[in-house]
């Protein structure tokens, strides 16, 4: 047993640094998952927390995927919830139609996730082609606009299904002209209800790990370097022949597809999916997770998403003040990170600064 552990340890050390940190992150997720599962089995977990387990997963997936756009690509997107919305509706739509056709839940749900991701990714490509030519503030406002358009359109959309196929309308159920026995699936503002509740904590954790791996592997590859080069200096990136548009769209659409995955997980966890849940406020909420966890820091995003999903439910006083506290956190974080006075203070009081000062003092004394 001991020999085995030593062998494992030396194997882990052999891996390069980024791989090692990934193994640790995934290990921590798996351990946390095991603890949660054994608590549920032993009946030690409150209903409140049990109900939040899947939510933690989809919010974490949302945060990690938004971090790809904001932290790694360096473009502010304020419409990330829009992609979640597309994933949620597409996945739920598929599951409701196929519930009688594909009996195996695992196969059906996997397909729903893939289709939801593909649709959200497709929208990511389309929207990316349109908006990624813009920079900075303009991009932020246009992503916000797209998020709102998606929300508004789904809010008036009616889709029904009968033996003749799928019918669309933007007016009401009656104008779908369904045959007898036809089924209305998307009911405008009422959204989709009765989606099979296939989302479980286990599936959520698996999807979270997969999302994390996709993004981490992307970052540590040729394409990831190109994406970060664009973030750091797009003029220099162009000068060494990196196709800026291509990699911006790549990062943006992968981010969108993963948000779609979170959406499918969401819609199969809840009785009714309504498009109004995916407005600008949700996008900002996810952005808060990313900023709080640290831009470009994937582990930070996961931790922030989980903590900020659980804490408000536990601290009752926080419920009323939740958004207020988030707002203050955003402002304080930004000032702490960027204000010249704070930057100097941090330099002076950080461990590195402390050691540097010691060394300097010692050198002086010796002289």
């Amino acid at each position, binding site marked *: 047993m001991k020999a085995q552990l030593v062998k494992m340890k030396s194997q882990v050390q052999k891996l390069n640094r980024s791989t090692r940190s990934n193994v640790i992150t995934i290990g921590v997720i798996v351990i946390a998952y095991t603890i949660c599962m054994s608590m549920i089995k032993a009946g030690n977990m409150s209903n409140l927390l049990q109900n939040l387990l899947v939510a933690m997963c989809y919010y974490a997936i949302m945060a990690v995927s938004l971090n790809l756009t904001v932290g790694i690509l360096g473009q502010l997107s304020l419409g990330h919830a829009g992609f979640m919305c597309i994933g949620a509706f597409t996945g739920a739509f598929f599951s409701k139609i196929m519930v009688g056709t594909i009996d195996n839940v695992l196969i059906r749900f996997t397909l729903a996730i893939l289709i939801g991701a593909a649709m959200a990714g497709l929208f990511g490509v389309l929207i990316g082609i349109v908006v990624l030519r813009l920079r900075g503030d303009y991009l932020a406002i246009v992503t916000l606009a797209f998020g709102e358009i998606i929300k508004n359109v789904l809010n008036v959309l009616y889709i029904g299904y009968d033996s003749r196929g799928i019918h669309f309308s933007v007016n009401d159920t009656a104008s779908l002209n369904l045959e007898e026995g036809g089924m209305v699936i998307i009911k405008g503002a009422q959204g989709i209800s009765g989606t099979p509740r296939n989302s479980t904590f286990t599936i959520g954790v698996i999807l979270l790990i997969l999302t994390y791996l996709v993004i981490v592997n992307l970052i540590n590859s040729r394409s990831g370097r190109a994406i970060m080069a664009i973030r750091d200096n797009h003029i220099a990136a162009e000068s060494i*022949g*990196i196709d800026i548009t291509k990699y911006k769209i790549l990062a943006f659409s992968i981010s969108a597809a993963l948000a779609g995955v979170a959406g499918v997980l969401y819609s199969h966890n809840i009785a009714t999916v309504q498009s109004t849940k995916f407005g600008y406020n949700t996008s900002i909420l996810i952005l808060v997770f990313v900023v709080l966890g640290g831009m470009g820091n994937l582990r930070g995003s996961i931790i922030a998403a989980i903590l900020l999903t659980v804490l408000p439910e536990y601290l009752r006083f926080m419920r009323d003040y939740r958004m207020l506290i988030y707002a203050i956190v955003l402002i304080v974080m930004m000032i702490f990170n960027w204000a010249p006075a704070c930057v100097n203070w941090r330099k002076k009081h950080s461990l590195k600064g402390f050691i540097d000062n010691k060394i300097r003092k010692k050198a002086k004394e010796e002289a």
Partner: protein
Amino acid sequence: MEMLSVKNIGISFGGLQAVDSFSITINKGELYGLIGPNGAGKTTVFNLLTGVYKPDMGQIFLEGENITGLSTIEINKAGIARTFQNIRLFKNMSVLDNVKCGLHNNYKYSSASGILRLPSYFKTERIMNEQAYEILKVFDLDKEAKLLSSNLPYGKQRKLEIARALATNPKLLLLDEPAAGMNPSETEELMDTIRLVREKYDVTILLIEHDMKLVAGICEKIFVLNFGVKLANGLPQDVLNDPEVIKAYLGE
């Protein structure tokens, strides 16, 4: 053999003729200097050559091929790489990754094999690492490979920029004030490196410099630009003794 042939290019910004009828021919393997007082339009010439600006008139040929009006990316792929006057490194990436970005178009594997860690990922990454370390060694940066590029001292940041440009495997290398901000001994060392790079990588070099002595020491030919027009062009000793050039630099 002609490496770069520029015929009468020019550009104006809102009525100001920044560069006017600029022509130059650089032969393969030459080390050419582009000098001139502040605001003479030197960097604008670089921006025209690399497609950052599109010329209003004239044509640019690289090894006989017309590259006028191509995008920056296409021009780099055609074989021109550059450095910048104000350093433009990828600050939040390691020294090694900066050079590996330069190798981007020389060694390819798909994004999918990167995400799924397919064999081509491991194979190509290994080659890229070897290549990058080899280039870093030339610039004596291999020991700092894992360091964040923004943590390098100034002189080394300039060298890293050259290394990154070189990694794209260019035929023509444009260096914009490579010795700016360096002390005399650093400059001396850089000049040796530039000579070495030319031999080892078989590149033609066009460089902008302010320090005339320094340019005279390394360049085989010099082009003097003033207010966007040619003042002199030729061998260093001829150019630097030209009364017009002396007048432009020292005044009347």
